[in-house]
């Protein structure tokens, strides 16, 4: 009986060994190939960031050159599709007549508000641009776009002045005048 058990055990071990050996000795097996279709959409982008959001003016009645206390750098970033050929940056007020107001009927019009871009000449916001009120804006730059700069950026330093020398502005009532200047870019076509 004992010899039968030993015989059976030997045969079983041998069989197991052969089974494993048969399996291990087999050549490598490769599976089928499955695929995942990937679609990634990178949208166009055009953004403007400002180095500061507040400018304060100490004005002198009738003075032509009331400078803001600080400059602001506008950084424009873009990633544009083929076909776009121009990026423009604009500054504008919502209404030309009331660029800054004291809330009591006293107004400083956009025509008295001037911006100098990158140390250039100061220009009043008297144009009708893509955004804002009629005759309440100014184009700050126009950048040609080619494949070489389809994804790029630029920074422009803006200096501000309020001119109180024209029209009825020399008699502007004293007080605090507040307003909001908007900076916005557009890519065309």
């Amino acid at each position, binding site marked *: 009986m004992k010899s039968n058990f030993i015989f059976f055990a030997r045969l*079983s071990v*041998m069989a197991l060994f052969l*089974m494993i050996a048969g399996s291990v000795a087999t050549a490598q097996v490769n599976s089928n190939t499955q695929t995942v279709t*990937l679609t990634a959409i990178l949208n166009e982008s055009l953004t403007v960031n400002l180095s500061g959001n507040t400018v304060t003016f100490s004005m002198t009645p009738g003075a032509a050159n009331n400078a803001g206390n600080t400059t602001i750098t506008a950084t424009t970033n873009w990633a544009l599709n083929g076909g776009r050929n121009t990026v423009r940056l604009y500054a504008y007020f919502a209404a030309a007549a009331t660029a800054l107001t004291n809330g009591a009927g006293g107004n400083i019009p956009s025509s008295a508000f001037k911006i100098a871009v990158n140390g250039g000449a100061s220009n009043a916001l008297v144009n009708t641009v893509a955004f804002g009120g009629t005759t309440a804006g100014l184009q700050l730059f126009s950048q040609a776009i080619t494949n070489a700069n389809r994804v790029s950026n630029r920074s422009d330093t803006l200096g501000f002045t309020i001119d109180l020398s024209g029209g009825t502005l020399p008699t502007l009532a004293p007080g605090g005048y507040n307003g909001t200047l908007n900076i916005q870019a557009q890519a065309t076509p």
Partner: protein
Amino acid sequence: MQRLQLINLFLTIALMAMGSVCARSQTLTVALSANTVNFNLTAGSNTNPGNNSVTVTTTCNCFLQTVNVYAYFNNAASALSQSGNNIPSSAFQISANSGGFQSLINTEPFGGVSAGIRISNFFTFFPGFGSPHSDTMNFNIDLSGGTLPSLPPGTYSGTLNIRAQAP
């Protein structure tokens, strides 16, 4: 006693035959829960996740086998492309089973040089024990490195391959 020996002999032959048959009929298959993944990319961002995960189910009809599952592209430089602009495989990342995201930068048995990654590695004792095996993959595209922040806008397409091997 002689009868018992005959039974033993029969069992042995049966086991050997089974082992031989199994060894010759090993099959290895992979199946995916989905075959499409979409991404909404943000220029320069390192986090652009795929819109869904994909589960790989690997079935090995085999005995005592290690199985490796791979993901790979055919070309490392152009994993996804659009009009001559490319997203390389090094910017394509997979998180297997909620692990960390890994870029496809290894040279594996399949696919292009430096264009793959091993998703998982498991051991199958016999069919039904160790296999089928499932791995869930999540995807991300990292656009923060090299020149990728200035990648032109557009629709980038590519094909990710999934394949297993029992070496």
